[in-house]
């Protein structure tokens, strides 16, 4: 059943990204998502960017619906359906986390949970430019080592995260988790999948969100139900990397 909840905090992460915090009683695991509706725009799938007592979603302004969501203020109501989907594997192991753009929203709770569960992680976060960086301070405060890549070189490594990741010795990790744009995920998989157990979270447009309508299908899997977090090899075996 959907739940209506008041927005308790709005955080402006950068000029085009806002985080909305709200109370939501259900237990949420890192990587899961919800369908969010403000009663005005469209209902949209959003990863949970905070999974503690006060949950959060982090929204980048990309179109009409997200622009409307950005107008929402503290005290206004959101309708949340979920949590839906699969989660990142969380174990007391060594992790390499790779985020592109808003992919950091889905991976940040995973990083925090890995530490809580006795694991370790290194984080690589890619942005277009330095002014777009967000959540990195949050991760560093939690004690996570974050390497930055920017397309224009205004912070950290100049270039894509898929290039920066090649500089890491993947033998030191048990798992790689990645979330970001599709071309980035494919590039990462080509580099890592034979070296380390890799899980990726796929962003997709969705209609039903509950595994019925087939609108988010990828290689015979439903992103909303079988994903959004997939074991990369399972997708690749079904032709995901074939152009």
């Amino acid at each position, binding site marked *: *059943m*959907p739940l*209506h909840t008041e927005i308790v905090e709005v955080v402006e992460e950068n000029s085009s990204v806002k985080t909305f915090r709200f109370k939501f009683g259900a237990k949420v695991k890192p990587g899961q998502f919800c*369908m969010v*509706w403000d*009663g005005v725009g*469209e*209902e*949209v799938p959003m990863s949970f960017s905070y999974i503690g007592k006060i949950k959060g979603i982090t929204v980048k302004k990309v179109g009409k619906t997200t622009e409307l969501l950005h107008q929402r203020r503290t005290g206004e*109501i959101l*309708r949340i*359906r979920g949590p839906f989907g699969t989660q990142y594997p969380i174990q007391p192991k060594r992790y390499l986390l790779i985020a592109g753009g808003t992919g950091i929203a889905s991976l940040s709770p995973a990083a925090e949970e890995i530490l809580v569960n006795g694991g370790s992680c290194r984080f690589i976060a890619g942005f277009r430019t330095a002014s777009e960086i967000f959540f990195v301070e949050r991760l560093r405060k939690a004690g996570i080592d974050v390497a930055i890549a920017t397309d224009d070189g205004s912070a950290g490594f100049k270039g894509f995260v898929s290039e920066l990741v090649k500089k890491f010795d993947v033998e030191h990790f048990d798992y790689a988790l990645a979330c970001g744009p599709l071309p980035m995920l494919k590039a990462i998989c080509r580099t890592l999948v034979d070296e380390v157990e890799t899980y990726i979270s796929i962003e997709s447009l*969705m*209609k*039903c*969100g*509950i*595994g*019925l*309508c*087939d*609108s988010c*299908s990828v*290689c*015979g899997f*439903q992103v909303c*139900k079988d994903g959004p977090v997939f074991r990369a090899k399972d997708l690749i075996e*079904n032709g995901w990397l074939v152009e």
Partner: protein
Amino acid sequence: MVRKTPLLAVEIAGLQMKNPLILASGILDTYAETMLRIAEHAGAVVTKSVGIEERKGYENPVIFEFKHGVLNAMGLPNPGIEKFGEEMKKLRECRAPIIGSIFGKDEREFVLLARKMEMYGAAAVELNLSCPHASGYGMEVGRDPVLVKSIVSAVKEAVKVPVFVKLTPNVTDIVSLGLAAEEGGADAVVAINTVRGLRIDIEFKRSVLSAGIGGYSGPGILPIGLRCVFELKRALKIPIIGCGGISTWENVIEYLMAGASAVEVGTALREDAGLFKKLERGVKKYMERKGYESVEEVVAIAHRNR
């Protein structure tokens, strides 16, 4: 004793199915890969309803889940018949029959779509004369018996594959629609599609769906579907495929006993992707326990035991 055919095998209008369990249209059937996965355990698979042109469907929210089922108004999203040919090509390796669901606004469109589906290799076509929420299509065409008869007979003349007609329950008398389909030459009818319904979001003070009114499916409509099949069985000679509210193998048996020769299953798959396998096992065990030797023996049994 040696059985000639497997216990659950059924035949409807020449379609050979390993069991009487069919994937209903609109559920997990837009992409070939998904349909192939479902077809491993289903007796047949109905495709997403396809029209002449690509349609995006309605804006989200298009679905609302609640205790007694699901309300949806997708708005017939589909890639259009030309593009859908690519999915049908990939389905040629499928061992279960693929039934092509089509929707049109008039005879001409239905004929064109049916011919394409036949050409693509569909084992049968299912005419969607029952979608409850797309303006100019579905039940807006399919609640008039005269139109139903003329569309069915036009399609029958145009194709060699069997023609199934999916009927709407959103009328006073579904039997008159069933008879119209039969008179038009339909090989089977499918009953029922979703029931028109509405839920209101009291925080946002508006319908929970962007389109307003939608179609209600899931366990709540089981008695409505069963009643429709029961009524149709009393009046029709052609086979009936039951649909609506099935979530357990017991529900499948109920439909068979009410007069269905096979059933379509949809909404319940949201809770259990392995549902077809479980339904198959449950129906088989029941039939063995009761000593039945074919599905046919169960069909319409409730009509005799009143």
